């Protein structure tokens, strides 16, 4: 095994032969990494490769089983996240870690508020500092509003502001862009560049490879917890990187099959939920994949929730196969063949403390029943079948889902819904936080489902995904459907124009 050679300036932060296991899972095996000042370093790998674990080790959340963390060349032991922070390491974790009841300002400065005499908090200075940060990030968020109810993107913005708020020598970002739109990403990258020029070391994780090439200078690849390579990005192609990550050549990312759409399966008419979305009408036909695009906050998720029955609608009508659905009743929607893969997999998609088996089983409580009692055998084989078909990586089917990596959790959510054999499948950000390999698999799956006659409505903020996969693109802007674009006419420009309200 070759380790990165040290040339030029000394690394600010380094990991040496780090190993970390969770029970039987060896999340990291002898991994080494060096972060240099003035450099943005990418960490690449499939879901479950160990990226987040590595970051948590750097941040003092996990103690490594073996190996050393070196700060300015000297070994250190972080006893907790506080130690790492005090050493000048700022971390944006993969899952937002906000305090829902506290204001944005407090979220950003918790534990580090500017003080007045006697150690009292200087509320005014804190407020000003937040305003300044918001300006720097170019967003308009009221510093005094509570974090509860913020969209995932806004939550991520607050996380970024938090990390920027102290002049860290090392900035670690675990998929900060997963929920952001293009312009927000651009602004974040601007900030990152400035930081880099000021001499900070940045560690960056993303499953969007183009971003890695855009902002990073070097990349370290992990595969199944093992270190594969650390090398400059100069001269590498996306295919090279993918090969490092998955150990083989990748199949096509958007394997869209051509289908002739059948009858209308899902029909939404003049659906309105006051203050959220207005007069939304569309159809999805059998065999069709319809993309639903729009900026974050445009109301796409809300439409999906209402259609599935999680929220009630105020006016309008939804029908599946011509049969009208009852307002606010997910169970009847399910019975009519509707399935919804929600956007927040941890809170909505999965019961985190339950086993993989039972999570998948949850949607089958009506079918895996014998004489009114649970048929355990049927439940298990149904769950196993789908976990295997979607290639979920797990140790035992009875393990709780919170031990899985993000991507694998997403696969479990998909498995759970595909197991119901839906006629209409609504997927909300199906590939958020999913590695390229899995992403291709998910796309292939959706494509196959459509080919089998399932009507698919795909909500996504990933424009290439929408363009690559959808037969038709619906675009929402501020709660209204603003455009319907055929596959042949759909380009980044046409979709973005409609999404930003520029087109009629």
């Amino acid at each position, binding site marked *: 095994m070759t380790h990165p050679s040290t040339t030029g300036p000394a690394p600010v932060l380094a990991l*040496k032969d780090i190993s970390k296991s969770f029970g039987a899972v060896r999340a990291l095996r002898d991994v080494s990494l060096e972060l240099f000042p003035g450099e943005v370093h990418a960490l690449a790998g499939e879901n479950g490769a160990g990226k987040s674990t590595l970051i948590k080790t750097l941040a003092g959340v996990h103690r490594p089983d073996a190996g050393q963390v070196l700060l300015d060349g000297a*070994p250190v032991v972080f006893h907790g996240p506080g130690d790492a922070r005090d050493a000048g390491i700022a971390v944006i974790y993969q899952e937002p870690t906000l305090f829902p009841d506290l204001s944005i300002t407090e979220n950003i400065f918790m534990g580090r508020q500017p003080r007045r005499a006697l150690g009292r908090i200087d509320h005014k200075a804190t407020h000003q500092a937040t305003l300044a940060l918001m300006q720097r990030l170019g967003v308009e968020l009221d510093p005094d509003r509570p974090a509860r109810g913020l969209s995932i993107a806004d939550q991520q913005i607050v996380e970024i502001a938090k990390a920027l708020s102290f002049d860290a020598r090392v900035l670690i970002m675990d998929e900060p862009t997963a929920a952001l739109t293009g312009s927000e990403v651009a602004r974040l990258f601007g900030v990152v560049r400035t930081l880099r020029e000021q001499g900070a070391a940045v560690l960056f994780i993303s499953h969007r490879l183009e971003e890695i090439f855009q902002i990073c200078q070097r990349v370290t690849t992990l595969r199944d917890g093992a270190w594969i390579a650390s090398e400059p990005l100069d001269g590498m192609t996306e295919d090279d990187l993918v090969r490092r990550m998955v150990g083989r050549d990748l199949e096509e990312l958007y394997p869209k099959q051509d289908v002739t759409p059948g009858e209308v399966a899902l029909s939404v008419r003049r659906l309105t939920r006051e203050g959220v979305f207005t007069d939304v009408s569309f159809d999805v036909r059998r065999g069709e994949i319809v993309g639903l695009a729009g900026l974050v906050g445009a109301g796409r998720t809300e439409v999906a929730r209402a259609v599935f029955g*999680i929220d009630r609608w105020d006016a309008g009508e939804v029908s599946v196969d011509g049969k009208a659905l009852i307002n606010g009743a*997910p169970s009847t929607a399910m019975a009519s063949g509707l399935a919804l893969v929600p956007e927040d997999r941890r*809170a909505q*998609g999965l019961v*985190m403390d339950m086993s993989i088996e039972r999570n998948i089983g949850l949607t089958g409580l009506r079918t895996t029943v014998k004489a009114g009692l649970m048929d355990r055998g049927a439940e298990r084989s149904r769950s196993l079948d789908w976990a295997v078909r979607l290639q979920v990586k797990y140790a035992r089917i009875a393990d709780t889902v919170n031990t899985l990596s993000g991507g694998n959790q997403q696969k479990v959510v998909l498995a*759970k819904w595909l197991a119901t054999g839906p006629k209409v499948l609504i997927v909300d950000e199906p590939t958020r936080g999913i590695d390229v390999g899995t992403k291709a698999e998910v796309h292939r799956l959706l494509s196959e489902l459509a080919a089998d006659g399932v009507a698919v409505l795909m909500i996504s903020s990933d424009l290439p995904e929408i363009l690559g996969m959808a037969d038709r693109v619906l675009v929402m802007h501020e709660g209204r459907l603003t455009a319907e674009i055929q596959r042949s006419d759909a380009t980044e420009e046409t979709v973005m124009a409609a999404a930003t309200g520029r087109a009629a």
Partner: protein
Amino acid sequence: MADFSLSRAIRWSALKRWDAVVGALLIVVLLLSFGTVDGFGNALNLSFLIGNTLPIALIALPMTLLVVSGEIDLSVASTAGLSGAVMGALWNQGMTIETIIPICLLLGVVCGLINGLLVTRLGLPSLAVTIGTLAAYRGIAQIVLGSDAVTDFPTQYLDFAAGRIGDTFIPYALLPFLALLAIAVVALHATPFGRSLFATGASEEAARFAGIRVKRQKLILFTVTGLMASLTGIFWALHYASARFDNATGLELSVVAAVLLGGIDFDGGKGTLGGAIAGVFLLGALQNVMSLQDVSAQSQIVVTGVLLVLSVLGPRVARQISVARAGRRAASAPVSKAPSPTP
């Protein structure tokens, strides 16, 4: 060697399941008491022990389901008291007991329904709601029956509630309880309904997204809890041949303590009915034994408290030990461990 470590693994994993520990503890206490405590093993004492524990056990059945689904009902003892009081008042009016009992059960359903509606329709926290109805139902009981103590219920009913089968240790009332227990166990652990309770308790939102009718399910649970509480109230009044407005005061804490002891997690989503019932009877048996051994009531309170604390610390310590063991095993396997001095 392989067998040896296997049996160890089983033992450790069993210890991590607290309900199994409580069950084992109950058996140990019973066996020890049979051998060493005078007056414990005879049929009469056992029938008393069971009879006095039954009210707690009866309420523990729906309470377990409720707690598993992430809610709680503290008004159960007041509902029981209210049914007893209404039963006494109606009996004083000269109504037949055969009409009174269904009326009281219906009243329990209404009490439970009120709790359920407040929780599900208004989205109020069940702890707060049922603290409120705890006071309200008990207050209504006081208004209904005032200072009366009704004691002259028909003998055949009193005998059923307080008597036992021949000279055995089995109270008549145990048989219907066992039937209810069986129903509850099947409902919680073997039906889709039970499965969805666990899901709701662990994550209500995820359960809703999986098409589980969370509100309806909770409404049913609260209603059943009210029904069982009023059944308990009727049983209580007959068992002790006394209907007063303050019957079963404070029973809710005993139920909660026993259910907690049985390893039901108050965060919802975890636990077994077997554990809860073992917890109920473990507390009952310990109290019986301690009384026979002349342990004062005050010391018994301390023992209950210590048991409760242990019931949450125990599994945790066991888990930590097993993690430490796993860690040691893992640590001894790899080659070297670099010393890591603090900066």
